[in-house]
């Protein structure tokens, strides 16, 4: 299979079951809402070392937020509900509670719940006030610029993490341009985030290492400089590989985003310097979800 002259390998991306939630962070201005969101989603690229994977899903106009202020929708993924609870408390407590004028709400209606304001309220040292409005309970936590308003609980859902595809290109600039096109197309879609910096990861990893105790190490088969000394999977013209990792609320969301991303990466054709699209997997033995590139792009 090829799209605009770019070969699509007959392989699949392997993804895993995760737990996820959506937060709506609002502030007095769109800029401060984004500041809070960027702080919260910082150092959340991979569950390997960050505890969770998180990203900005989209920006919200005042009419689309619970308190009619500018907001940002954030998706957070963790390996289990306990870790999700821990990360929520840490990240909202350190990054949103601290941001001037901010408020934080659940953006996901789901029967399973994790605590948010119900944990953070203790910061109020007894001066916090619970307010039940309709079916939802909020906490008003006094802070130095007024009150931090935070929903008591947020919805939690089963989700999918680790959808991916790799762009093999003739040069780093060609790989970068293709990845930027892909991210540009994918960020328009709902229910997904690409948790790595700018949505793109250049340090793809394999499981294990020659060094004792390291769970992951560089994916030498895709490192162009190691072509001569390892079992390389790269064509001879490839000089750069970039990976896009996707976490989504459902497998369908990931499939849709991979479809859009791959199409955009291939849209410049051969002249764009993209050689091949492939995907990362572990032989299909570890992940519950498989995304076959040929099926996706058929």
């Amino acid at each position, binding site marked *: 299979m090829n799209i605009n002259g770019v070969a699509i390998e007959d392989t699949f991306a392997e993804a895993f079951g995760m737990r996820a939630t959506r937060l709506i962070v609002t502030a007095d201005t769109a800029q401060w809402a984004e500041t809070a969101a960027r702080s919260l989603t910082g150092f959340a690229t991979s569950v390997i070392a960050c505890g969770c994977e998180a990203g900005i899903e989209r920006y919200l106009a005042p009419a689309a937020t619970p308190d009619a202020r500018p907001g940002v929708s954030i998706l957070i993924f963790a390996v289990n509900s306990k870790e999700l609870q821990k990360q929520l408390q840490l990240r909202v407590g350190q990054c949103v509670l601290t941001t001037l004028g901010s*408020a934080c709400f659940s953006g996901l209606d789901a029967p399973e719940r994790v605590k948010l304001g119900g944990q953070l309220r203790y910061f109020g040292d007894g001066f916090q*006030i619970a307010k039940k409005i309709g079916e939802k309970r*909020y906490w008003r936590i006094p802070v130095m610029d007024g009150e931090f308003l935070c929903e008591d609980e947020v919805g939690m859902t089963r989700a999918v993490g680790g959808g991916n595809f790799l762009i093999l290109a003739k040069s780093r600039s060609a790989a970068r341009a293709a990845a930027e096109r892909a991210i540009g197309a994918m960020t328009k879609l709902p229910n997904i985030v690409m948790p790595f910096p700018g949505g793109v990861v250049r340090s793809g990893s394999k499981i294990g290492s020659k060094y004792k105790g390291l769970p992951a190490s560089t994916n030498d088969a895709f490192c162009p400089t190691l072509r001569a000394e390892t079992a390389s999977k790269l064509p001879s013209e490839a000089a750069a590989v970039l990976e896009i990792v996707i976490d989504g609320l459902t497998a369908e969301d990931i499939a849709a985003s991979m479809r859009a991303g791959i199409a955009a990466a291939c849209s410049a054709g051969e002249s764009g310097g993209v050689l091949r699209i492939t995907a990362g997997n572990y032989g299909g033995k570890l992940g519950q979800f498989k995304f076959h590139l040929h099926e996706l792009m058929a």
Partner: protein
Amino acid sequence: MSGILLTVTRPPRQRLDLSPLLPERLAGATLEAIGAIELACGNRRLRVDEVFALAPSESAGLVIRNGDAKLDHVGHEMSAGELTVEGDAGAYAGLAMTGGRLTIRGHAGPFAGAAMQGGILEIMGNAGDWLGGGLPGERRGMAGGLILLRGDAGQRAGDRQRRGIILIEGNTGDFLGARMVAGTTIVLGAETGRYPGFAMKRGTLLLSRRPRQMLPTFTDAGRHELGFMNLLTAYLAPHSVKLAAVAPGLMELRRFTGDAAAGGKGEILAAAD
């Protein structure tokens, strides 16, 4: 037949206890069976058909027409469905109701919505004392749900309130929110009587004007924009055109905290003047 219409044809001389007449209990019952239900009236018992003319109704739920101030316990412990009183209701309307919607198109007597736990109680006219309060001897008043009062309330509205929202579009008597424990009571009228928040521990009294006579145990905490007001007014706006109209004026509020004689964690929020 989707609903039941009960029209008062022989108004009772004594107070009549309507607590057996709940929409969820009467749904599916025949008019004969409903007519045979006995109601306490003073020291006697009266059959429903001795007081009311019974008829099927096109509108959903239970409708009581020609309401009267002697009809007590309307919607007592109601849990679902719709009950409408066309006219006045007596004491204890919506007492301890947990769900559904009770509408009184006229006035309601004392203890309307007392010990309420859920659902919506709407009173188009005025309400007596202890709106959303607790029964004598009880430690807690209203513990959930929404009371919408279009007219004025008597004294001690929201007495010992624990949770839920009381929205009063008119004025209130003295001791509004006395002994309040939590929850929210809103008064849009200009007059809130003497000593609102007497002995309140926690909870919020939201007033469209600063009270005329306030307890010395409340302390002015200054003017503030409070984020939860956006949520509260957005939630209530569909229920109250009057609130929706004044909502912009409630974004900046003067906060008084008290009652210092009872812990002082309650608040009176008054539209900033």
